[in-house]
């Protein structure tokens, strides 16, 4: 009768399971122990990381942006039990299903939504840290977006950190989808319109892009 947990992902930092927690559809994320670290140090660092991840989910919800609710955190085991967000598609899959020509309205809509959502968390000084299309769940019917995987998130008010957050997403989009330059521009316009200081963040994004390009040329 004990509940069963299905392993759905073995990532670099954590194992992710899907199951039930007192009846609720739940995702269980278990951060690994790092074998090469001194155990006492590892314990401290991974407790902090696990705490930060859970706290960011709460912060995100409080900013009015969908994220998995937290059900239970076990710092000793580095476990986070969280809501299984089932009301949509992973954005990556959603984008893969769209034809750029016949679905251009849908594509523009989702880019606007993503831009608006990122502006909301950034206005609350929440940096996601790993904005990729795998870490967003999109519900087309309600055009709302949930963010997941706050494993690299942190709090910062610096335009630089927000710019880098956007840069990560731009790179992720460019590598997975055609026609992204135009789409990312729609996203940025929506970000700028919704955000408190969009201009300075986007100026930073430009700087980060330049640095990235130089690095590419050198490397």
């Amino acid at each position, binding site marked *: 009768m004990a*509940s069963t947990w299905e392993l759905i992902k073995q990532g670099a930092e954590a194992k992710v399971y899907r199951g039930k927690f*007192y009846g609720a559809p739940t995702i269980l994320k278990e951060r690994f122990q790092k074998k090469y670290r001194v155990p006492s140090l590892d314990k401290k660092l991974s*407790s902090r990381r696990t705490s930060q991840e859970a706290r960011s*989910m*709460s912060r995100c919800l*409080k900013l*009015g942006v*969908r994220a998995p609710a937290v059900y239970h955190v076990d*710092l000793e085991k580095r*476990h986070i039990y969280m809501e299984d967000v089932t009301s949509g598609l992973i954005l990556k899959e959603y984008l893969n299903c769209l034809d750029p020509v016949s679905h251009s309205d849908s594509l523009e809509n989702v880019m606007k939504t993503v831009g608006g959502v990122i502006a909301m968390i950034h206005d609350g000084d929440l940096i996601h840290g790993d904005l990729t299309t795998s870490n967003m769940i999109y519900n087309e019917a309600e055009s709302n977006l949930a963010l997941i995987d706050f494993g690299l998130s942190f709090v910062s008010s610096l335009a630089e950190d927000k710019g880098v957050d956007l840069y990560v997403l731009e790179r992720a989009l460019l590598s997975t989808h055609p026609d992204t330059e135009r789409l990312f521009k729609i996203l940025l316009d929506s970000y700028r319109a919704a955000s408190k200081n969009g201009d300075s963040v986007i100026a930073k994004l430009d700087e980060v892009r330049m640095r990235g390009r130089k690095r590419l040329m050198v490397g």
Partner: protein
Amino acid sequence: MSPFYLSHTYKGLGLLKMKLETKSDHFCTLFLCTGLTSAAELRRTVLSGKLPCCLLDAGMICSSFQVMVAVNKAVISLERKKLVTKSLQTEIIYSLSPSTNISESLRLFGAKDDSNSVVAVFTSDSSDSFLEQEESLKSLVKGLGGEVLQDNDFSKTLDLKSLKKVYQITDKELQVTTLEKAVTTAMSMKHLV
């Protein structure tokens, strides 16, 4: 109602081959009791040890899930010998609270003498005794002019305003999540580092 099985978290992770910290299985059942003229008598019976349960102020409870999450936490603390209160019963009350202040937590979430509605929570390492305990709870509650509800519909007894205040839940977050989920999220923030 059927008892919840404390599907004890760790048991479900058998595939990880983790050593189980549970020394035994745990079961839990809960009842919403309403229409009491006073909860004083009920509290006395519990304090005397005749009714092995914990009594919550029903106004602060929005769902069974909220209670189960608290019981889960309390049982884990018991197993790890890390109870911060004197018993599993009070630990359940404390686990509901977003505050680390014990007396404040017990005051906010425990049933009070003048409570008209309470939630009675029974935990045990077997569910054998539940039927008997349910009967004694029912007769006690009946004697006090109240009834034990069959459906655990907490919306009838919930004090929404106080609940939102204690857990610091905003209308903004309720646009993107449910009350129950906002509550467990707030409960989970308590012991983070």
